[in-house]
Every structure is written in C-alpha cells, then in structure tokens.
C-alpha cells in the first residue's frame, strides 16, 4: 500500500509510545495551538536555561501524524541551544513544504526524516507541523523574541 510511505514504522512507534509526554514544571512559556479543520490540539510548555532548551512537555490530542511528530520533535530539540533547535525547525518546515521533492538529511533530522512521505499529502502537512509551530511559539515567548524576526505569531 502506498500509504506505507506516510505511515512509516518509526511514525507508528512514536504514535504508540510517545516520548516526553505530559506537562511538567518548571517552564518559561506555555502555548495552546489548534488545528481547526481537524480538531487537533496541543498544549505545550518550554523550559529554556542559559540559551538551551532544557525541557519540552506537552499534552496533545490528534491523529497519529501529529502525535508522532510531537514525540519526534521533543527528542530533537531537548538539550539543544535555542539557535540550533530553531535551525532544525526551519529544516523540518522545508521538508514538510517540499511535496516529497526534498531528500532529508538523516544526520540532521534523525527520526523526523520519516515524515518526508507526509509532505506528499497537503491535507496532512499541518498535522506534522502543529507541535513544531507550538514549540517555536513557546520558545520565542520564553526567550523574549528571536533576532531574525521570523516568528509567525
């Protein structure tokens, strides 16, 4: 089935056993993002210390793609500097907007490369991006804005 390119085993694994789930303290910013067309929702908290993302915690409701993406995203950004993590976010965004034409770099995106197939389904791209957008929003709030002025608030 063609869908195997969307529902990769990595995605299904993260969906069944999500990482870093739950809302934790302390945190510097909390956001609530929704996807109004499908009803997906995420509440997400970010803790930043000395320019490093030290924790991302979340409660979310949504499809396998949005749930797995949140799990993969936390694996990638926790422990990284804000600047590096924002770089990953740009990389992932580019992949999701590529309509299946970008060959993702596994050394950079790790498990997130599994979402390359999702980029071929325009209706599902926003599912994969929901938690990333929430994380970016919360992080920008936590650090009081980013120099590039690219926050999409």
């Amino acid at each position, binding site marked *: 089935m063609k869908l195997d390119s969307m529902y990769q085993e990595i995605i299904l694994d993260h969906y069944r056993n999500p990482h870093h789930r739950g809302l934790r303290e302390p945190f510097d910013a909390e956001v609530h993002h929704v996807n109004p067309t499908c009803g997906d*929702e995420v509440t997400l908290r970010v803790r930043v210390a000395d320019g490093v993302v030290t924790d991302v915690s979340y409660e979310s409701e949504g499809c396998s793609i949005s749930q797995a993406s949140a799990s993969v995203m936390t694996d990638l950004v926790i422990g990284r500097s804000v600047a590096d993590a924002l770089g990953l976010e740009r990389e992932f965004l580019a992949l999701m907007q590529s309509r299946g034409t970008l060959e993702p770099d596994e050394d950079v995106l790790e498990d997130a490369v599994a979402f390359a197939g999702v980029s071929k389904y325009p209706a599902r791209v926003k599912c994969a991006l929901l938690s990333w957008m929430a994380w970016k929003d919360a992080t920008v709030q936590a650090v009081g804005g980013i120099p590039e002025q690219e926050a999409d608030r």
Partner: protein
Amino acid sequence: MTDTETDPRTGSRPSPILAGVGGPRSGYDVERVRKDFPILARRVHDDRPLVYLDSAASSQKPTRVLDAERDYYELHNANVHRGIHTLAEEATALYENARDKIAAFIGAPRRDEIVFAKNSSEALNLVAYAMSNAAVSGPEAERFRLGPGDEVVITEMEHHSNLVPWQMLCRRTGATLRWIGITDDGRLDLSTLDQVINERTKLVSFVHQSNILGTVNPVATLVARAREVGALVVLDGSQSVPHMPIDVTALGVDFLAFTGHKMCGPTGIGVLWGRSELLEVMPPFLGGGEMIELVTMESSTYADPPHRFEAGTPMIAQAVGLGAAVDYLTDLGMDAIAAHEHDVTAYALEQLTAVPGLRIIGPADAVDRGGAVSFVLTGSDGRALHPHDVGQLLDELGVAVRVGQHCARPVCLRFGVPATTRASFHLYSTRSEVDALVEGLGHVRRFFGT
C-alpha cells in the same frame, strides 16, 4: 419515511431511464441512477472503484445538470434583467424559469419568495444582516429589530453557518443568544423548550437535519412553541431539501435556507425562501445594481423582493444548473429518493453497529434520521483512532468519507470527541458501498492496532 418498494440492490425491475423527459418512476433502480453521474465511474488509488460517501459535504452532479450549464454558456449567455437583445432575454427567461422550478420544488406559494444567494451560509447571513439593518430602517421593519433584552434561539447541533451569523447578530444588536441542548442519543433536548423559547425570543433558527448527527428535528414542535411567543422561525434545510420532500407551507416556518451543491446542483448557488409578507418589509443586506428602484447621489429606494436581495449580476448559469437538478430530483421522485436513502441508512447503521470498537455519534436507529452517520472508532488494541487516520486509510481503499468536526465543533464538545468520521449517503449510494466502508474499517483497526 416508508420502506423501499423494491430491493434497491437488485435493480431487477426495468424502468425508463430519464433523459430529460418522463415522470416519476415507480421503482427505484439505483444502478440506473448511478449511470447519470459520470464521476461515479472514476477509479482512484491503484485503480480502485470510487466509493463516494461524502455527499453531505457535496453531492455529485448528474449529466443533465452539467449539460444545462454548458448549454447556457454555449447558446444563451448574457447578463440578466438588462439587455433587450435576444440572448439577454433568453438568459433572463432561463434564470427566472429556474426560480419557478425551485418555488414549485419546495411548495412555495409565490415565485418571488425565492431569493438566490451564494449558498446556505449567505442565505442565513442575509436574514441576520437584514435584521441588524432594521435598526436604521422605517417602522415597517419593526418585526426584524433586535436589541438588548431580546433573545435569539438556536440549537447545539447547528452547523457553524447557522451559529456564527447569530452570534455576530447578537453582538451587533445587544441581543442574547440561547440554545436548545442535545440528548445523549443525539436528539434535541426538548425538556427545556418552554424556558429557552420564551416571550423574549424574537427569532428561532434551527437545522432541519443535522449534518453531523443525521438527526431530523421535530419542526412542528419548535414552530408551535415559536408561534406561541411570536418569534420568527428560520430553518436550515441544507441537509434536508436534498433528501426528502419539502413543502414550506406544511413546515410552517418563515424562512428556509438551502444550497444547490448538496442537491446535485452546482456550487455557488443557494436559496433563501421567505414568506412574501416578511420579504416585503425586510431591509436589504447587500447594496448594488439590480436591487434598487430609484437612485440619487443622496439616497436610494429598493426594488421589490426577490430582486431587493440579489444585488449585482447573479449566478445565472448556476441557477440554471440548479433548475436542472430540481427537474432531475423531481423526475426521480423525492419520496422514492427518501425511501432509498432510508434503506441505505438503516443498513449502514446495522452494519456499523456490528463493527467492534465503533460508537455511533447520533441516533443509532433510522427513525427521524437522515443519511449522515458519524462515528468514532478504536483500534484492535482498544486505543481511540483519530478520524484523520481512519479517513486517510479509507481513502487508500477508494472510500471517500469526511473526517473532522464537520463545521459543528459544539457537537464534538458535547459528545466529548475531538472529531468524528462521517459517512453520508445520497440518491446514488448503495448497500455495497456500505459493505466497502465496513470492510475498510476492519482494515483500519488492524493497521493501527498492532
């Protein structure tokens, strides 16, 4: 509704195919009907036959409707109500003829009670904005005036298009929005009807058939209560007019809104029916060409209904297409269509209820219920499956359903679900398509359940 006279699956009874002529058929031959819809022969994903179960979102169009639009553009196209040349007169005649057909289709006493709009949303907004425009109109519009202390009543099962315009109207006027709740089995909770609709109620607007629950609401009960308190009644017929015989006089409402594309007609055309004595005194919504009588630089007077409410060049080809759709539905017979859909819906409820882990959101029996069936599903491991995942996998099997909140988020909140999967049927739907859905759901449960 009544049971079907013949088994719609067998199609054994020969019946004359309708190629633009002929009266209602005695038997309902769904396989013959399907041949009128070229798109139903499409194949998707690895050459699978299309199983289109999303007619509540938009119905497919029979060849007759497509031909009517094409003929209009190829042979008669011109602007209406303006020119004196041949094409302009033909276009005007075709446009106004569509109005006649639609008036007859819903039993409207007068043709000028049919107002063309873009869709149901615009038809409902037309009433809502006319009501706030009443504040700056003469005494004749008193009936439409709202202010603080007045109440507008809707229900918890409204499509956003019959919810948000009234929220906005209440905000503009200071009136209060109230609503009738939903019972656990997806019916209106009428136990508080006399409190919710009271002497402060100026308008009651509710859906005839819910797009998400499938519930057919008791119009007579709500109309009777609204009449006791002198409130205007608006009915959202988006999901009922395409599927059952409608007689506005029998319904007893003041306004009826519906949309063309759900009843085998084109997109971009909807209808507001209103009682003529109300339309006569209702202020306009949109200003512009064709809706006026006399214009000076200082002020204008307005045309009589329906033109008062049809500013600008209307959707001429779409109206002609909707007229052809109404002819098509009339020839099949709305009673026969309703009976066929009732059979498919009852079968679907029976089959879906038997799917492990499936919970119907809405009435679980086919009584006072239309063919929009929402449900939530758990995988074979007992975990809730998100409708998006359900819909995506079904699509790969060729089965088209709608997933999400169906523009009725309050209903999802009421039932504590983030979203639902919805299968919806129309005059061309079959029992074997229900079987394909059920088989697909088994596949979905196994895919995510391991």
